[in-house]
């Protein structure tokens, strides 16, 4: 009897382990499948309600954290700073862009959100609990016009891009996720590179593969470069503010061709985001 129980237990365990590996190998890199879509569709309204209901409690806990950390900022000054920052980044990008190039890529204006995109506002209803992934789930999906690869921003700047969509929800892979790579440029110098995360530290991004002799200085802004050519193009439109350079030692620039960037958006505390749907892709 006992042996039979042990055998049954081992069989179930083996089945679960094999099942896990099978799921992993079948679904990795495939986006969402039918089962996942079904489960997410059933639970996303519950998640949405729970998210709204728990917001006061969340805010309270976060308030303690922010107070402890002396992070509390005057809301009015914060708003003013954001407006000024956007204006500064927008104008720097505009100055830096050559009019002829703009004509070539048919950009008719530069700014925080490029023309041709329809922003869809969504709320973060779920977040990956481990330090290894930087994904959030939002409460808008294909029913709202959201598609895979749509860029996602919030009031501060670029947040990430949509990597999976169901009818009523979507997964946003943040720019701090290890799988993220954003083509970016420093303004006003125009130095270009690829912005990659430092896993586990969403406040530190690394602008890598700097392809310029020009040195990059601290406090310079970094925006999406939004390159296109030979049939391929960046997922992100040009000139979306990303962050500012925090560390730019000449040694690091020369030896490793990289500088450190702090994102404008607080990737740990996301609430409302905008998905830039449409655009010129596809």
């Amino acid at each position: 009897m006992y042996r039979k129980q042990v055998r049954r237990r081992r069989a179930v365990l083996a089945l679960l382990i094999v099942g896990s590996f099978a799921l992993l190998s079948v679904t990795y890199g495939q986006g969402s499948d039918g089962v996942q879509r079904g489960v997410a569709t059933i639970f996303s309204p519950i998640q949405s309600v729970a998210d709204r209901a728990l917001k006061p409690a969340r805010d309270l806990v976060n308030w303690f954290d922010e107070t402890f950390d002396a992070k509390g900022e005057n809301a009015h000054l914060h708003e003013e700073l954001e407006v000024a920052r956007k204006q500064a980044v927008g104008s720097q990008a505009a100055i830096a862009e050559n009019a002829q190039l703009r004509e070539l890529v048919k950009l008719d204006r530069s700014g925080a959100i490029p023309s041709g995109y329809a922003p869809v506002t969504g709320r973060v209803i779920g977040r990956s609990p481990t330090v290894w992934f930087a994904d959030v789930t939002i409460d808008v999906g294909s029913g709202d016009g959201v598609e895979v690869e749509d860029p996602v921003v919030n009031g501060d700047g670029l947040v990430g891009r949509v990597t999976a969509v169901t009818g009523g929800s979507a997964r946003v892979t943040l720019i701090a996720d290890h799988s993220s790579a954003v083509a970016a440029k420093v303004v006003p110098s125009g130095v270009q590179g690829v912005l990659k995360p430092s896993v586990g530290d969403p406040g530190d991004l690394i602008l890598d593969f700097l392809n310029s002799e020009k040195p990059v200085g601290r406090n310079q802004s970094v925006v999406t470069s939004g390159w296109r050519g030979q049939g391929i193009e960046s997922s992100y439109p040009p000139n979306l503010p990303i962050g500012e350079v925090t560390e730019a030692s000449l040694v690091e620039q020369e030896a490793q061709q990289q500088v450190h960037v702090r994102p404008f958006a607080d990737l740990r505390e996301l609430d409302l985001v905008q998905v830039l749907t449409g655009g010129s892709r596809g």
Partner: protein
Amino acid sequence: MILTPNILARIVAIVIAGVILQLTFFSQVALFHVSPDVLPSLVVVLGLFGGTLTGAVCGFSVGFLLDCLLIAPLGGGSLVLLATGYLAGLFRERFEIHSVLVPPLLCMALTFFAELGFGAVELMLGIDAPVSPLVVRDILLKSIFAFFLGWGIYALLRRLLRPALVEEPAAQLRRRRRPRVIRPSRGRRPRVMGA
């Protein structure tokens, strides 16, 4: 643990509520810049109450639901939490829980294990970016949070699953078995009961 349909329904409800609470609350609050991860502790406590099989099945279910709701690749979370639940169940089957500190300490240790496990799965699938040393701090803080969360979860789940629990905690048993003196009736020697 005696698994009746009623208890199974309770466990399913606990798993769903745990995952939704994690995604909508715990993952979105920060203490010292780190979000607590309640799911390994939940799986550990279920494993402690139910043994290896219950722990493993609950771990698999929690991971599967988590991956589904995050619209993430399936299997990674299931694999790690399955191992976590199994280890908790194994502890329960091999050792007696002598102290009230054991469940929270186990939650802490196995949360540390689970976070490393998530990292191992990611490394297996390929991490394309440098790993910050802050990951270590985050994992350690999550483990410390799990110590305190594990305390509460253990007490809550013991209450919710009480009808199914076969064994009472050792401390309670000791309390019950503590020798007590019955007042002697006239002319009789004191009698010690329960020794």
